[in-house]
């Protein structure tokens, strides 16, 4: 029994009931009224005859919906404790109430003006559903009667979101990285590199055409093997050192090794110059250094201790 009562109490559906049971609304007139109080359109409603209405009123700026109706309890006019027009936005679920002023005879009058509605309902684009809630203390069955909808002709706000989030996850941000350095097309780089290498090859070719030869080299190497090795070794060493520095070495290491190679190369170079002179001029031994026409423009290699081994 209690459960049955409970179910009845909990399930709040409204609707049309026979005229004599509970609260009802009769002689209802819903008119779209302008600011100058002229009625643009009027709809009639009556809860005893029509279950609910779904007419949509398009309200422009400055217009309002005027409602006139009579509340009846068990068929007789009476003043209910609660006579509200519930205005609901179906998208967000927010609902506000506009209180109707009812006289003792049951005649009620209320104006639903969008400008007087709370901010979330004022000026939205979605149509707002109007429902009449008529109820009072005691055992009379209360009435929930859907009147229709009002839609703003000139909405001032965009459509409301269904669930505005307050504390919640924020939109993701991904960082757009600066684009990589712009390089010219590889084919152009390759072309110019090929041009450079072509020049080098042209140099080699021109050397051969100018009768370059290495005919004295075996004799030189045999005549002074250590110093030649040191000389050529230091030159190749310097080139290799440069390549290593370019690829992976650090400046400090390069300077240390470069200093070592420099000493080696200096010793070897002096010896080479001396040997060069001797070989060119067909001399095999130093003997006494005589200043003559042929060696006038040669700086004697007195700084090189190695020559004293010859």
């Amino acid at each position, binding site marked *: 029994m*209690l459960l049955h009562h409970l179910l009845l*109490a909990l399930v709040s559906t409204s609707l049309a009931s026979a005229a004599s049971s509970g609260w009802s609304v009769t002689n209802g007139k819903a008119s779209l009224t302008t600011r100058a109080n002229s009625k643009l359109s009027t709809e009639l409603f009556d809860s005893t005859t029509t279950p609910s209405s779904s007419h949509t009123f398009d309200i422009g700026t400055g217009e309002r919906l005027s409602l006139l109706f009579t509340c009846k309890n068990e068929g007789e006019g009476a003043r209910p404790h609660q006579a509200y027009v519930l205005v609901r936005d179906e998208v967000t679920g927010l609902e506000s*109430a506009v209180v109707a002023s009812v006289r003792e005879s049951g005649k009620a009058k209320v104006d639903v003006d969008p400008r007087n509605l709370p901010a979330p309902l004022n000026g939205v684009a979605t149509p707002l559903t109007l429902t009449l809630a008529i109820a009072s203390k005691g055992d009379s069955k209360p009435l929930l009667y859907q009147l229709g909808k009002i839609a703003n002709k000139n909405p001032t706000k965009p459509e409301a979101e269904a669930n505005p989030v307050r504390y919640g996850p924020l939109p993701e941000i*991904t*960082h757009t990285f600066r684009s990589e350095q712009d390089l*010219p097309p590889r084919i152009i780089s390759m072309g110019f590199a090929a041009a450079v290498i072509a020049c*080098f090859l042209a140099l080699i070719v021109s050397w051969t055409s100018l009768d370059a*030869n290495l005919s004295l080299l075996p004799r030189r190497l045999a005549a002074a093997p250590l110093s030649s090795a040191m000389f050529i070794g230091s030159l190749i060493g310097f080139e290799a050192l440069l390549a290593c520095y370019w690829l992976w070495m650090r400046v400090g290491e390069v300077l240390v090794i470069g200093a070592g190679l420099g000493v080696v190369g200096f010793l070897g170079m002096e010896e080479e110059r001396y040997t060069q002179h001797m070989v060119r001029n067909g001399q095999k031994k130093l003997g006494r250094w005589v200043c003559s026409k042929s060696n006038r423009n040669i700086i004697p290699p007195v700084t090189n201790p190695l020559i004293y081994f010859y």
Partner: protein
Amino acid sequence: MRFFQMAAAVLCAAAGLVSAKSATGDRLLAVLDAGTDHADYSQFFDGLTDRHFDITFSDLKDADLALFKLDERTYDHLILFPSRSKGLGPNLAPLKLLEFVNAGGNILIATNPSSVPEQLRDFARELGVEMAERDAALVDHWSYDSSSHESHALITANGFTGNEYILSEEVRNGPPVLYSGSAHALSNSPLVVPVLSAGRTAYVYDTKEEQAASEDPWVSGTQAHLVSVLQARNNARVAVVGSMSMFSNEFIDRKEYGNAKFVRDLSGWVFAERGVVKVVRVRHHLMNETAHATNPSNYRVKNDITYAIELSEWSVGHWQPYIAEDVQLEVIMLDPYIRTTLPLLLTTPTTSVYEKSFMLPDHYGTFHFKVNYKRPGVTYIEERESVTIRHFRHDEYPRFISAAWPYYGAAAAVSLGFLGVCILWMGMSEETLSEGKKRD
């Protein structure tokens, strides 16, 4: 392995410090009125005692009542049931209550419509809760208990919050709650969460002045909130309930309604038995780097790093992993450069680890990593750690680029050419160079 050790340490610490099921302490002060007999609420208070709360009962007008002693809170939780008084007394003035909340204490307030002390309304207004005036009652002509079929003041409400941390599943999907009192309106603060709201046909009217008809309701419909909670930014919780009789034995004994479980869940959340989340640790390091380089203070532009945060939830007596899908990490230097969601990587018996690998932005400066996790119903988490992001060193740029191929060729040509000249100088025979020109 390290997670396990950390988790075990946390568990031991938790077990040692807290013997109650509440995460913040078990000293509870219940302040009742001269007109209230706490035997009328014995089921509620016995429930609290069963959950290991150490309850001290006191009277509102008690002069010895002190929330603070030597600047330390003497109680962790406060229940305030002023049923008849017009004031709250000097020891519970709104400023003192605010101080209590600022010090981390939780408060549960319930009122009767016939007595809402003005001081209590002031305190509630501080929280963003606009309580109705004195002698205002909530009625619902559609959802009322049959025993009040004349006045409809004893209503049944099932507008439970959808938040899963405040009310458990069985309460949210369970029977409605019996309620007799007034309602309040809420401000738009994100700290306030309505826990129980009235139906769309309910409204609050002034019992002294609006006997004939309701002309100006304080609140109505789904905007009339019956029970609301506030979680302050220091994670202290305050609940405002419009009906003291909801906690009474009379209402709890009505088994067809869900009052017993509702007050159990509500007091559980307010007194920090549920919905308490903490950060166990934060770990970030270069991706693929070994563990010893954890949480460095310097990174380089465009480093690939991995960020992991470990969270744990206190739920009725023990720590358990906290599962969520929207834990976000922000990398901020004045503005967020990156905001990503951290997916759940793994769960240990007491914690859950959220981890993500990403590339640092290509701006250098002082950044900070922030996990700013604020959700209604859960304690607020804000973990912030500063790092420096430096720019590329001179040797961290690409070594060779395609635009420089001609120059590499030129350098090689010069080196090889020089070597060639030297070897030619050593080995070339002058006789063939120019006939007729003799060195003298």
